């Protein structure tokens, strides 16, 4: 009996080792371990074995079965591994073939620049708001301390609908709308489209964008204005950016200033980009004029504030080194895809 089992086992292992495919292995399993298999036949012949021998024979049969199964599994794993390796060998890719991309669209450079600016000021607690593009004279001029005969109101610059209604020439009017709401303190950022009667050329457009900033609170100082805008410049143009404030004049701020940043191309040593100046003019700003506060029913003895206005196109042109403003409104896909 024992010999027979050894024989069966040896035969099974021989057949396993000779098998070259998974289905052959399965045949071996069936012919030895299946219902009609040889080992099963041995078990069936147990009735001829003496009862006291049976456990021993049973054990031998089980051992043989386990051994065959073990060898079978091993052979199967081995074969599967080889197959997988062969398949992978056949599946080698030329990884330098072009990528398959879904064609994403591109944001306009103005918007990219705007979102940068918004991110910086939202981080400082500013709420982004909007105002009307078709505006009343009062909000665009008068409430900003630009009286009726001021040269800034000259028709050369302003598109009028009628004597009272115009296309806003600046986003500064949003300051007035916000202040009139009577909710203090204010920290607002108002981006938007503005219009001036300039013919289209490489540096002018009759329609462009400004970003207006306004802070009104108790104890706001000119030093706060400087600190805030210096922080903004570093965030937008890089940690090493230096700023310079020059006195200037705007009717709705006093004192007023223009802010230059150190040229982010040459670091301030002077290059073609900054026309050898080392500095680039970025924005106008100032402390909100007491007359403007008073017109908005804010007591200038109690509250002070600062305001600033940035030309969005100016930032976009500088930051992305775009040399012609007309590109921003042509919407040529070859231009837009570069952003």
């Amino acid at each position: 009996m024992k010999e027979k089992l050894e024989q069966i086992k040896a035969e099974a292992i021989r057949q396993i080792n000779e098998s070259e495919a998974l289905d052959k292995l399965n045949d071996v399993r069936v012919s030895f371990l299946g219902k009609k298999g040889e080992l099963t036949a041995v078990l069936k012949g147990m009735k001829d074995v003496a009862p006291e021998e049976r456990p021993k024979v049973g054990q031998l049969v089980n051992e043989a079965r386990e051994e065959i199964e073990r060898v079978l599994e091993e052979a199967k794993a081995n074969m599967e591994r080889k197959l997988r390796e062969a398949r992978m060998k056949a599946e080698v890719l030329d990884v330098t073939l072009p990528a398959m991309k879904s064609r994403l669209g591109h944001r306009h450079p103005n918007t990219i620049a705007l979102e940068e600016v918004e991110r910086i000021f939202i981080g400082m607690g500013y709420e982004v708001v909007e105002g009307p593009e078709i505006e009343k004279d009062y909000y665009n001029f008068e409430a900003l301390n630009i009286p009726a005969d001021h040269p800034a109101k000259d028709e050369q610059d302003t598109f009028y609908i009628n004597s009272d209604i115009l296309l806003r020439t600046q986003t500064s009017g949003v300051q007035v709308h916000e202040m009139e709401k009577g909710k203090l303190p204010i920290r607002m950022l108002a981006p938007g489209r503005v219009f001036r009667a300039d013919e289209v050329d490489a540096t002018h457009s009759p329609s462009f964008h400004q970003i207006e900033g306004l802070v009104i609170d108790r104890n706001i100082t000119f030093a706060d204005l400087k600190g805030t805008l210096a922080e903004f410049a570093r965030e937008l143009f890089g940690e090493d950016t230096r700023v310079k404030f020059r006195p200037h004049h705007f009717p709705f701020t006093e004192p007023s200033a223009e802010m230059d940043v150190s040229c982010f191309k040459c670091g301030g040593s002077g290059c073609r980009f900054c026309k050898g100046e080392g500095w680039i003019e970025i924005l106008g700003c100032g402390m909100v004029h007491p007359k403007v506060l008073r017109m908005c029913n804010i007591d200038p003895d109690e509250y002070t504030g600062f305001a600033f206005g940035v030309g969005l196109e100016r930032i976009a042109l500088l930051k992305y080194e775009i040399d012609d403003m007309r590109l921003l409104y042509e919407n040529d896909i070859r231009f837009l895809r570069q952003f």
Partner: protein
Amino acid sequence: MNTSLSWIKAYVPELDCTDQEYRDAMTLSGTKVEGFSRLDNNLEKIVVGRIDRIERHPDADKLIICQVNIGAETIQIVTGAPNVKEGDLVPVVLDGGKVAGGHDGGPLPEDGIKIKAGKLRGIESCGMMCAIEELGTSRDLYPEAPEDGVYVFRKQVTPGADAVEALGLHDTVVEYEITSNRVDCYSVLGIAREAAATFKKPFHAPAVNVQGNNEDVNQYISVEVKDTDLCTRYCARVCKNIKLAPSPEWMQRRLASCGIRPINNLVDITNYVMMEYGQPMHAYDLSTIAGNKIIVRRAKDGDTFQTLDGQMRKLDSEILMICDAEKEIGLAGIMGGENSKITDTVDTVLFEAATFNGANIRKSAKRVGLRTDASGIFEKGLDPRNAEAAINRACQLIEELGCGEVVGGIVDVKEPFAELRQIAFEPERINKFLGTEISREEMLEIFERLELAYDAQTNLITVPSFRQDIECFADIAEEAARFYGYDKIPTTLPMGESTTGKLSFKLRIEQKARDVAEYCGFSQGMCYSFESPKVFDKLLLPADSPLRGAITIANPLGEDFSIMRTISLNGILTSLAANYNRRNKNVRLYELGNIYIPQSLPVEDYPDERMQFTLGMYGDGDFFAMKGVVEEFLAGIGMKARPKYDPNAGKPFLHPGRQALIRYKDAVIGYLGEVHPEVTDNYDIDTRVYVAVLDMPELLPYASFERKYEGIAKYPAVSRDISMVVPKGVLVGDIEQVIEQRGGKIMEEYELFDIYEGAQIKAGFKSVAYSITFRAEDRTLEESDVASAMKKILNGLEGLGIELRA
């Protein structure tokens, strides 16, 4: 405004700085220096030479050989200049020296032109005699220079002396940007005062004293101002025995540095005083003034007047005129008249220095179409106190220059001056406002330099009349800040109550629109808000379309930019057309921008500014691709219900069979479709174009960023496929409506999986197949549940004339 630095130094003699230091310091104290140019740039080794002997060149008709004494020695120079003669004193550039440009007066080369000794037609030449253009300047500024040839000194200069010095070219012309509030700085004295304060040096205004003869000016002229609202002061003086001659060199040089061409002593004096004091003046030939009388009054509508440039000008009743007893003789503040202008035979001159209403001058100059140096200054609104000083300064110069005899006295007609402003001195408040710790003493020192007088008793600062810009505390603070130095003010961040930084809900929705559009392959364009009224025809809008009721700009750049758009399509179609024309393939663009719907015409109040999310594309993709983008966006902003598409959109600019209104619940939130082929023709696009326009204000009420977890289904779904033969006119939308209405609560979703028209289907019908999924939240569905739901659906479909396919 331009001035020479030497002119500034005439009033601030202790000013000692380099050009760059001047530029930086002035800019930081508020007088922005735009640039400066050295007049002696690239002028090297140029001395005065005296031509001692001239011989003909043996081999060239047009050349001569000059022996030129340059002080220490005599050198030989060959020249082609036609104008020189023996004894002439001329500028000579020596071997190895440099000149600024060529004799043709063209653009100056950056590094100048190097001059070397050499031979001209075989004859040694050791330098070059210079034309005025070669010295980097022009005959406009040196009128005595010959039109063609070498500059010859009129005055006595010593051979060997620095010729650049002798020409007054060791100087710097500084260009300033003066802000509109600083009227006083449109004058050399104003800038000099700022320079003195900036560099903390004493400021010396010119000492004005006029002798005058013992006659009385009132015997010569009387003045009557009728329109005192437009003329608050009129000063007149008379000078007789006028002797016209060139003005002295120093005056010519100073005028030239401002870009003003020297003419003669009389004209130059008026221009000089205009630049020096910022007060334009005018000179009339007294003999042309009828009745010895000046009347200042408004013109009459329809009058015409010939200005001294010979042009006829149309007048109106808002234009102020200077008149004599009979006629108009000058456009006040703008230009004098042909009939009273100074000629070479003038004997007696009437000087005028007046203060006109700035806004009126600005508007008049514009209407007349004549903007002069004088009107440009007047329109800023002048200090009436300045007029008298200026006219006396002019008369002083008449006397000093020997130009004539000044008649004693002045005619001065004026309105009462406004009182000088007084402002309390509040140093603590200034420091609190600026965030500084400037000492009281330092502030007072600054104010003193600016001629802001402080009275310790009243604690008031008195503002001089020329500083019209200083009105209140904040202005005083700015003066302190400017001269303390903006750069020395610390940098801090605002303290106080914290606020929440955020985008408004509308802006967040727009941000999502950008994200979805870009995810779907659309790039962002930007289009103008104004366009041409022709757009309506291009878009095939009928004559009575309300969209044609656009807001019109009163003063547009041209018809193409004359109306505020009422529909956003033109922008995107124009952009697509530009891309198509440039052969860009597969272009997808979107735009977020307003349209402007007037509440009434003519416009009386704010119009309705409606943000439009406009998408347009050509190339890959079709109507349903565009529809997909719309639905992605709606899903992205939390609009989860199925939008409905109404094919009866009635948009004339879209393909009649390929357009739909987009309905969401009760609102029409936009439309989409294929652009009408006639419209694409109008835009020169020779391919199919698809557009979608979403009217953001309409969909905003339905949008939300709220999200809630609804659980994942626990019980299995059952699905049923139905295949139908549908009359062609029935829309799948109609079928879906039946499925939705009749499917009951257990109907979870449905999906169109096949639609077919063709040979196997009978004419006038199409084959449509849906897969409908049922599921209950609380149990496994029984066969009977599904069967009854299906039965209801099928009954409903039969009502549409639909047959089930086996």
